[in-house]
């Protein structure tokens, strides 16, 4: 089909045509960046911590009176919790993923190292933590029973010394790239040496998906917290989590009724809370994309309808000279395609500019170019869908009616 008649018509409606082009360009620029933002948030939402998340229940107890016997009470708690029906394993840990606190320490390879130290999430946990979390050792071994120390005893030492540590693979690869980590020594607590006895495939930072100094580096010490400084992690079958949590609250209340439950939740509930903001941003951004597309579509429908009405005489003449209905329809469709294409061309440049600006403002990653054709395709389809009704109406005009107008 000849493009010249379309171009010459558009030239006579420069402003209206220009407005549609600008609207499509703006929409494309925003939609591409919104898609990119959604993708980055979805990536955060899909964070894989490597834990048996669907099987874990967290119980955090707070004391309301001073307690000198906290370690004894914790031992009794553990015994009672392990005896509960449906419980596969239980462990105490100083911090838990998606929790309310994050413990980090700096790691050195030499004693008294002053520069270039790394920060890593610092877990300390009692027996059975690795099994309870469902983590996999890729090198070395778990702690031996005799290696566990009591946190309360350790904190009274002048120079605290913990002989063993288990690191996650990220930390091992950062410290000793390409070498086995087991047997190596790091200095973390009071500049005293701890020997690596195992490497975990994964051990997540307590705030996964958040920007922290530690990144994904983490380590675990065989130091037993009491219930006062730690939380109980219970592993069970997914279907039994609520029952186990209820039974655990009752069992611990029997041991010491002065305590109150700070947190009692499944790990999945805590995950949902942790990522709630990201999830609501995904919804909001999706809403913005839909609203933008709808508004743009209405703009196209409005202007196209107006053009059809204005060109009634031209359509009638062409029909009288032998143009088919399909040719009239295609005329409007092609016109829309040309307008949308120019809008898309400008919009792609706009999307990249907007991305640069967002990168400066929010430290976002650069807009991956793949979103440009995705956005372009969406707008081409939107344009064609929006123009379909006005184009059909134009095609349906009988030549006589058109000439009479």
């Amino acid at each position, binding site marked *: 089909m000849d493009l010249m008649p379309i171009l010459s018509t558009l030239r006579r409606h420069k402003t209206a045509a220009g407005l549609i082009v600008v609207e499509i360009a703006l929409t494309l620029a925003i939609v591409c960046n919104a898609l990119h933002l959604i993708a980055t948030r979805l990536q955060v939402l899909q964070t894989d911590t490597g834990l048996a998340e669907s099987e874990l229940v967290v119980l955090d107890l707070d004391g309301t009176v*001073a307690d000198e016997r906290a370690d004894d009470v914790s031992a009794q708690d553990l015994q009672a919790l392990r005896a509960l029906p449906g419980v596969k394993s239980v462990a105490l840990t100083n911090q838990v993923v998606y929790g309310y606190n994050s413990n980090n320490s700096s790691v050195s390879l030499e004693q008294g190292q002053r520069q270039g*130290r790394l920060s890593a999430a610092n877990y300390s946990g009692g027996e059975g933590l690795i099994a309870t979390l469902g983590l996999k050792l890729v090198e070395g071994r778990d702690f031996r029973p005799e290696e566990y120390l009591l946190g309360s005893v350790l904190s009274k030492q002048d120079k605290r010394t913990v002989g063993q540590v288990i690191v996650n693979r990220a930390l091992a690869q950062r410290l000793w790239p390409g070498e086995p980590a087991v047997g190596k020594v790091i200095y973390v607590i009071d500049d005293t040496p701890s020997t690596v006895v195992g490497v975990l495939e994964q051990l997540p930072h307590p705030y996964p998906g958040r920007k922290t100094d530690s990144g994904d580096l983490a380590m675990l010490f065989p130091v037993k917290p009491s219930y006062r400084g730690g939380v109980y992690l219970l592993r069970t079958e997914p279907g039994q989590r609520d029952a186990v949590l209820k039974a655990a609250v009752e069992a611990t209340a029997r041991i010491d009724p002065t305590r*109150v439950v700070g947190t009692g939740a499944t790990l999945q509930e805590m995950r949902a809370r942790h990522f709630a903001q990201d999830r609501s941003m995904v919804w909001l951004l999706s809403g913005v994309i839909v609203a933008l597309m709808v508004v743009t579509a209405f703009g196209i429908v409005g202007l196209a309808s107006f053009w059809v009405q204005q060109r009634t005489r031209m359509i009638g003449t062409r029909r009288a000279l032998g143009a088919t209905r399909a040719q009239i329809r295609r005329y409007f469709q092609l016109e829309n395609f040309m307008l949308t294409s120019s809008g898309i061309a400008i919009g792609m440049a706009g999307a990249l500019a907007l991305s640069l600006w967002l990168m400066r403002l929010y430290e976002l990653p650069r807009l991956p170019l793949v979103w440009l054709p995705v956005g372009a395709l969406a707008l081409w389809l939107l344009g064609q869908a929006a123009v379909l009704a006005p184009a059909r109406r134009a095609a349906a005009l009988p030549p006589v009616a058109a000439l009479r107008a």
Partner: protein
Amino acid sequence: MLLYYLDLARRSVRNARALSLLMVLTLGLGIGACMTTITVFHVLSGDPIPHKSARLFDVQLDASDLVGYRPGEEPTFQLTRFDADTLLRERRALRQVAMSGTFLPVRTDSPDVKPVYERSRITSADFFAMFEAPFLRGTGWTAADDESRARVAVISRKLGDRLFGDADPVGREILVRGESLRVVGVLADWRPVPHYFDTTLGAYAPAADLYLPLATALGFGFGTAGNMDCWGNSRGQGPREPGSPCAWAQYWVELASAADAPAFRDYLVQYSEAQRQAGRFERPPNVRLRNVVDHLVHREVLPGDVRLQMWLAFGFLLVCLVNTVGLLLAKSLRRSGEIGVRRALGATRGAIFRQFLVEAGALGLAGGLLGLALSAIGLWLVRQTPAPYAALAQMDWTMLGLTLALALAAGLLAGLLPAWHAARVAPAQQLKTQ
């Protein structure tokens, strides 16, 4: 004349109902989205204590060791116990406060009252006067109480109601982690937004419900919550003991005027230098003294998502505006005939221009009213989100006025190009084609 234009606008709307409705809807959507996000931004970025924010300063000292030292870098944002105690004792400002947030269990000696964990603040005496905490009954405590580690407490109205029901809590005893304390004051409902004097437990956290003297609480061995930076060797000391290398206390001063800040900064530098000579500080003096607004900007209190949402909404409004301009233009071109007749009957170009602007402004205002309703819904939606500031998203009169102003401006802006086009219509040609 305005009334006549409005009547013309009414007729024109009636002649193109669908198109006008579409324009009002588009403008309403854009304005509603904008106002929702601007309101949230406005609430969250406000100055929490405007009449004295320029005289309140957050104090930072560089007490850390030389590990990873880069000259001039940002010092730890809180103070160690030793520095907080010393600065408090030297009293060089009009008022000074050393404090930390924490969570403490509270009950009374009545067995019917269940212990509750309360958001608490352990602080020195000037806190209430400095941050203007409103007392419902009683008062705070004095610096002498701080020194004598008095067993006193201030509670919120909410906590008072929970523990004592209708009775006046002042003078009554409460048990905090088993320690008995006497209530000396009750605070009226108070929510500084942001929670500017301590953002480590969330910048939009509610204010505490229980307040104890810092020295008393530390004497009992109560912990703190929030951020703690430690370096070097603790030598068997707890992190909140005077000799420990851990920074966890917020330290604020109120000066008589903002002009006193340089002198106070000099004092902090001298203090740091003296500490270095005494061998306590390893780093050269490196202090920060930021007032409330600078402090909030520096701590990047405003959530990035809130600003991002606002820019998104502005982008959306821009698309809506372009859309409305296009539709208005189409509408005015369709009315070329009518314009030709009006021009032929003596209406000037200016009159046509004004007529179309009035119509656009009226559409804008209608869009604004719709936008107002939509932003009420939008704010309701924000309040349903789990964000810590959700409850704060409320429309106020300023925002209401701003919405209508924005709507009118948007309508007029959208109307300019079409009105100009309409005014240029040549009457003769239009009359001929009819």
